[in-house]
């Protein structure tokens, strides 16, 4: 009703005949749009893969930024003792009035050591931590300014030199497939001839099926979309995994200035669809599927995590059979809070305990009903 009256006051007065049937909530998307533009979007992208595969260059090319200006490359000695780190860069990008808070999570050191057993552990721990944080925030009292740091998408770089997935690739994607949407990419595709690209993509698709690896699947088009869109969508799906090339430099090609790489035998243009799939990746990631990725993260991966968490909590409580036990919330390494936040935390904890008791009661009821 209120929407109706609001609409009436804003829109120009239509004819009498139309007013009877037209309610006006069709403008809702516009309202949402306006609100979002004001609020801005946030997106967290993780890049993973061995060093030297062009991850940073690709991110710079995707978002037309230069996030790693003065990066120091470690030499082999320093790298021997290095473990996998997690680094975060946040940058605010604005385009046509729409703000995007982009966070890039990098994983330097991944796969570099001689012994790479469980080198994905820091990465999975990080993703879980972000889920925990969100879980706590969501269950808390003050939910006005929840920061969504959950990782929405992980670009995994596969080296083009191999003959398909290597053991470390398989293990990594398997460890991450239930926590984040993994998009595999063929890195540094300028060392491959077109026939080799085709062969490698087929090989990768085969192996992904064979090992049962779950990567991000594009949602199917609705049947009422137009033919052009459907064709594009089909093309997109058939060219996965994308073979990409990134570049930090602008070169002159065919009379234009383009992002590219200059070789003695020719110029590779990053944005030329016949040279590589960079344009497709950018379209998919930013222009068409960004929101879908966020949805999948919150509807699918996060919910899985949450369900698992609560499950393990309640089962632990049943095992203990002590209601007064300290609240088994996941332990976060939070910084020492001050008195004000301490109070808030205590209130939150009480609330959680009550919630869990309720859950337990509900579960018991359900159990009795089943019997």
């Amino acid at each position: 009703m209120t929407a109706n009256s609001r609409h009436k006051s804003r829109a120009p007065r239509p004819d009498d005949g139309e007013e009877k049937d037209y309610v006006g909530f069709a403008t809702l998307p516009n309202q949402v749009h306006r609100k979002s533009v004001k609020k801005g979007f946030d997106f967290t992208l993780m890049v993973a893969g061995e060093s030297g595969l062009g991850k940073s260059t690709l991110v710079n090319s995707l978002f037309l930024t230069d996030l790693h200006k003065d990066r120091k490359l470690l030499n082999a000695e320093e790298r021997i003792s290095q473990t996998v780190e997690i680094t975060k860069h946040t940058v605010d990008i604005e385009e046509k009035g729409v703000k995007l808070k982009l966070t890039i999570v990098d994983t330097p050191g991944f796969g570099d050591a001689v012994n790479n057993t469980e080198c994905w552990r820091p990465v999975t721990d990080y993703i879980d931590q972000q889920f925990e944080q969100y879980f706590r925030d969501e269950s808390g009292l003050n939910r006005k300014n929840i920061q969504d740091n959950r990782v929405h998408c992980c670009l995994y770089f596969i080296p083009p030199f191999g003959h398909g997935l290597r053991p470390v690739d398989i293990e990594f994607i398997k460890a991450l497939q239930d926590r984040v949407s993994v998009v595999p990419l063929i890195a540094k595709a300028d060392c491959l001839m077109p026939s080799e690209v085709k062969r490698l993509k087929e090989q990768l698709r085969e192996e992904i099926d064979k090992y049962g690896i779950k990567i991000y699947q594009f949602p199917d088009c609705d049947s009422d979309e137009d033919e052009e869109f459907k064709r594009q969508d089909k093309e997109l799906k058939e060219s996965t995994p994308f073979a990409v090339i990134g570049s930090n430099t602008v070169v002159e090609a065919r009379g234009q200035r383009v992002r590219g790489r200059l070789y003695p035998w020719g110029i590779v243009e990053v944005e030329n669809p016949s040279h590589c799939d960079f344009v497709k990746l950018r379209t998919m990631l930013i222009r068409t599927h960004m929101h879908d990725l966020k949805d999948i993260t919150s509807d699918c991966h996060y919910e899985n995590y949450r369900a698992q968490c609560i499950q393990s909590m309640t089962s632990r409580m049943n095992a203990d059979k002590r209601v007064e036990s300290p609240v088994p919330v996941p332990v976060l390494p939070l910084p020492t809070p001050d008195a004000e936040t301490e109070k808030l935390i205590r209130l939150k904890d009480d609330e959680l305990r009550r919630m869990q008791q309720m859950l337990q009661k509900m579960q018991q009821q359900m159990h009795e009903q089943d019997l």
Partner: protein
Amino acid sequence: MRQESASADTLIPMEESDTNKTGVVGTEREDGGTGGEQTANMNTANSLKEDKTPSEKETRREQETEEGQTQVEVCRSVPDLQLSIIRDSDLFGYVGIEAVLEQMKLKTIKAGFEFNIMVVGQSGLGKSTLVNTLFKSKVSRKSCTANYEEKISKTVKLHSVTHLIEEKGVKMKLTVIDTPGFGDQINNKNCWEPITTYINEQYEKYLREELHVNRKKRIPDTRVHCCIYFLPPTGHRLRPIDVEFMRRLGTIVSIVPVIAKADTLTIEERLEFKERIRQDLASNGIHVYPQKEYDEDPEEFILNERIRGNIPFAVVGTDKEHNVNGNNVLGRKTKWGIVEVENVAHCEFVNLRDLLIRSHLQDLKDVTNNVHYETYRVQRLNESNMTFSELGFSTWPLENGTGARCDSDSHL
């Protein structure tokens, strides 16, 4: 080529070269056509008019003294021994000493060469393709095995393939040793062990043959003469596995590092990458071929220094030909151009080929025989505390006690 009956003369080992750069006496200076060729025919049985091969086989020594003057030079290996050098123009007629070069050459051509090359690197770096391109024939494991599968094997297995190739009457027995599975696992600890074991086994085999009472005239040489190590073109630095491998193997075999699949690096990136690799090699104390310690004279030093400033070579390999400007060249065709393998402006394949085959093939064998093998031998003999009297030989002192290359190493 005429067949000569095999003469049972003194044992000349296969590794003997006719590019003898050390000598106790005199020079190898080729006289500029003062009837040398004709007189050679007089002294040797066959009248082959072989072209004098280009100067890769003969080194020229610049002497600044005038013609006709006998110059006294102190011999380097035996100090205080003064020798007088007699020039051609001083001789009272042609003696025919230089014809011995011709004889040596013919003998080695008849006997043929053996060359064993090992390729090491992660799967997919183009090892087999590069070896095929180097020797312009399908000599790699990939081309020879019937059911070649590109699956990653769980352990490092060594696989060697031997071919007899012939060019202009010169026969070469080429063995390519492949190391599939190296560096492909999640945990690559000690993946270099099968390789070091193999190399030492070959030295052991040769040692045993050498110590026999009745030795074969020509001991079959399966020792690894050269190990090409493939570095992935990351553009950053050496990885820990690279450092570990080269550190361990640099002391037992001649390593030639190359940057594989270099068509993914621009020229700038390539130069920076090479510089960083050289720094990493220096800071880790890794000596790759050609090693500085084994340069024998200033000329060699200059030549090798130029090579050392350019390693590791950035290579691209292929066996497909394309048409460029009317010529059929080996290349890789992409949407943005054709990468020509033998074009020096595109990649350094030609430099690698020249180093390995055209100029330093014999040197690689020499270093393996005189340095690496001798080091192994000394170690083994010390370990087992053998003396030659136990074997029934008369004792004679070990020449290369320290394993360093000795100047008096001439097989003449």
